[in-house]
């Protein structure tokens, strides 16, 4: 403001918009409509601008949507053994024959025991071409934990042939199918574990932060005790306590609970510190003065204020859960036969011959890396997108 003259107070001219006024105009149809959109849409928009995060999100969403139907995409059952093809290297799929496109086919492949090298050798017989079958019947699989069963597969091995896209292990189990089935347990373990860990963490952290006092002290001490326990030995001890006659589902849930129970202190601390800060805000005092119950204050006024933070940190914690399951199973203490997870597969590949002679058994590393990376990218993107003060 310029034009301040000494003595007399400044006289401001009244501002009059010279644009024509129409009473029917929507006042929100202003110059910056994006500011008026709901918060989630703004966040989504920012997320979509983060290419890597968006791609990761799509990738993960697709995978999770596929999870219940993995049996459909897998040509073999998770523990189906093709004893005619043991330790078979990844099989080639052919598309062209004599220059012309004939669709995907495999050739008849016979195993021979080579006593000089003590290995199975595979000979491709190109005179016998076997087109891969689509939408065919194969091993029975279950959808949604046994709600439905089906025998329909996207593609299967032709009569008298095999399709082992990523080879087979020492007892003839198809690596590709196992990676798909393994995704079911390995990826759900992350979600479930996070759910448990956040349920405990948000509840306890919220209580501690909102009410403070003795409750706060108790929760904090509990967290300190849990944090001071060495994690790996604790995993091992808990996992070893799982009795052998538990069903695979119970073992799986147990592992998830173990991972979740050990993870919540981090969440609880973050929630508590947020609560401590927010409860002093004016809008909280206002709500309280108007007679809102603590539950309502927490749910309506506090949680939405840092939900974004929770979502982002959840996305970033899931990989730790997946890696935790993989590590436990790799050590032979998590899931075990007949369950299939990526960790179980890596455990199977834990031998000299697998590393030197059957490297295809190690392909289970690839999905672990991909999913963990995708979650990290997505988490990063979400954090940026949900932060209203971010540069983007």
């Amino acid at each position, binding site marked *: 403001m310029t034009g301040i003259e000494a003595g007399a107070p400044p006289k401001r001219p009244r501002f009059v918009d010279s644009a024509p006024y129409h009473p029917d105009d929507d006042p929100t149809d202003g110059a910056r409509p994006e500011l008026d959109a709901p918060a989630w849409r703004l966040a989504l928009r920012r997320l979509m601008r983060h290419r890597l995060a968006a791609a990761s999100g799509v990738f993960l969403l697709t995978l999770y949507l596929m999870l219940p139907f993995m049996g459909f995409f897998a040509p073999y059952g998770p*523990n189906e*053994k093709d*004893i005619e093809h*043991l330790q078979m290297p990844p099989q080639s799929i052919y598309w062209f024959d004599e220059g012309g496109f004939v669709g995907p086919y495999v050739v008849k492949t016979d195993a021979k*025991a080579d*006593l*000089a*090298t*003590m*290995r199975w050798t595979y000979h491709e017989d190109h005179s016998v071409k076997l087109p891969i079958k689509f939408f065919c019947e194969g091993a029975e699989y279950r959808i949604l934990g046994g709600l439905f069963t089906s025998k329909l597969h996207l593609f299967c091995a032709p009569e008298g042939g095999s399709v082992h896209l990523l080879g087979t292990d*020492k*007892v*003839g189990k198809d690596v590709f199918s196992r990676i798909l089935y393994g995704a079911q347990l390995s990826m759900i373990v992350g979600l479930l574990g996070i759910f448990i860990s956040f349920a405990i963490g948000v509840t306890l952290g919220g209580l501690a932060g909102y009410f403070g006092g003795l409750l706060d002290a108790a929760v904090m001490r509990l967290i300190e005790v849990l944090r001071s326990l060495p994690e790996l030995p604790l995993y091992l001890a808990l996992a070893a306590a799982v009795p*052998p*006659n538990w069903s695979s589902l119970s073992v799986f849930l147990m592992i998830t609970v173990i991972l979740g129970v050990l993870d919540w202190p981090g969440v609880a601390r973050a929630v508590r510190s947020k609560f401590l800060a927010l409860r002093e805000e004016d809008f909280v005092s206002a709500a309280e003065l108007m007679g809102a119950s603590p539950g309502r204050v927490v749910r309506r006024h506090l949680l939405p204020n840092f939900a974004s933070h929770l979502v982002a940190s959840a996305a970033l914690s899931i990989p730790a859960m997946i890696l935790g399951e993989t590590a436990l199973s790799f050590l*032979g203490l998590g899931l075990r*036969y*007949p369950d299939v997870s990526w960790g179980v597969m890596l455990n199977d590949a834990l*031998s*000299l*011959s697998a590393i*030197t*002679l059957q490297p295809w058994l190690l392909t289970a590393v690839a999905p672990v890396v991909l999913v963990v990376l995708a979650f990290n990218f997505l988490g990063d993107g979400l954090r940026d997108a949900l932060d209203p003060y971010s540069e983007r």
Partner: protein
Amino acid sequence: MRFWNRLHSAALLALLAVSAPIAEAREFIDEKGRLLKLPPLIEHTLAAYDTHAGALPPIAERLPLAPRVVDPTKSGRQFGVHGGSWRMFIEKAKRVRLGVVYGYARLICYDADYALRPDLLLSFDVFEGRKFVFKLRPGHKWSDGAPFTSEDFRYWWEDVANHPKLSPGGPPRFMLVNGEPPRVTFPDSTTVIYEWSSPNPYFLKKLAAAAPPFIYRPAHYMKKFHAKYTDVKKLEAKAKKAGLRGWAALHNDSDNMYKNDNPDLPTLQPWRLAKDLSGRRFILIRNAFFHRIDARGRQLPYIDRLEMIVASSSLTAAKSASGEADLQARNITFPDMAVLKSEEKRGGFEARLWRKGDASQMALYPNLNYADPVWRKVLRDARFRRALSMAIDRRLINRVLYFDLAKPVGNGPLPESPLYDPGFVKPWTQFDLKAANALLDEMGLKRKSARGYRFLPDGRPLEVIVEYASDPAEAADALELMVETWREIGVRLLTRPRDRDSLRKGVESGSVMIAVWTGWSNGLPTPSDPPLDLAPMQQSSFQWPKWGQFFETKGKSGEAPDTPEGRKLMALGAAWAKATTDDARAAIWRKMLAIHAEQLFVIGVASGAPQPVVVSKAMRNVPKSGVWAWDPGARFGVYRPDLFFFAPSKSADKKSGEK
């Protein structure tokens, strides 16, 4: 005569000045009493000889007057040269005892044809199976040069085995026949006589075992720790200093001829433990007083040193594949063979396949002493065991795990054994789900649907928990192959990996339902071998740990066999011990084997499995094929590792084609 020692190089010149020609030929009496000429002796000039003995006497004085003269060509091998170091891997420091196993110098030992021959002894005579006359080799010396005489036997028998403090439970069981100790006499310094009132068929076999009970001790050394010969006060003070309770503990601590962990303890083995420095690597040095020579006058062993390197068992195959071991079979399993074969050239070794000498490569041991009474009744029902056995697809397992190189038969004598009969290993081993199902139906183990799991008589689901340890390594894979075929007969198979020791404890306490282990350790029994695995006489038999314990503790703990078959086997085992002729013993063996074949107390999955043996290209005299067996066999022991040698490096390539 030339000899030098690193520490005494000053004395070398003086020695050289008076050096006589190589010891002149002398005569000796061999074990058959023939007077033979000793070949001219060849001195091995080796700085690496043990330095603790100071200057060693010449070879002629180190050998017994009647050494054991070995002609390697008689066992299809060649004369060797001295030198070299045999590197091998062991999984923990405790396994340094393998030096005693592989060394395999025993009073009496098995030859490659599994016949018993005198070894440390010059000769032995047995009268009526109850009187044993042992003749020692005159002039035989311990590895520190002290004479090995009947005093060493007397010391063990009178001052150790019958000493109330050192053996509170009295003499060990194998020295007793019907609870009676022998009468032991020592007429002269080279004669020892053990005499029982009735036959002791276990005695000689025990002495020839891979892990023998040494019935002699280096008395001159051990007396230093014995209250009878040394001032008790001094000993107690010494024990206190070492943190031990009393002199007896101190004595026991120093007295471990099998454990091989006291470098000061004199030995008679071909190699003796040198001072260990790190606990990660053990050196065993040739025993300068070893009693065997080859027919050209070269003292055995040919190889100067054993180098035992501690490495995790899971790394052994990888390390061997890179040529870091000269001769290795321990901790290498058949699945490693493909890798070993592919690395042969680069690693400078040859991967050979021996055969396992166990009665079964892998066997299921239903625990007849399982704690749960309902389950125990099921496990004790032969029909149940037969059904489980018939629901194992042995051909498939053999193909998948052993490349079709094993035999898909049950637990029992291998074809090389004189007691072999297909009738002992074939019954109930054919893959027949229909018959198996019929047996279980007959037992009244009901199932709700034709494809569902069965239930126990008390309504619990029929869930068989099979626990396994590291031995055999492929157990987990084999069980996985069984899961599906057992499901067909309505048996749910659950598996659990265990640590070796905890599995053993679980079986003995009755908390393990079915254990997986290798079959009977003796797959090549002869009628004169004690049928210890076949009768409930050992706690370590996984099928009846408590019955075995009952026998071993003379009824103090455990349970008496309470099934007709158990009692019958027990009676047969006792009858075997009383039998006096091999025909009678063979007849008893066959009866026992027939009971086992019918009852399937041990369910074998495959037998005669291949065992990879990594042999360095420079290593000679290691058989192309052999039986990898613990007892009898002592692993390499029966193939005489003292005859193994390293070809001199120049001719290594030329000779690589030899046998």
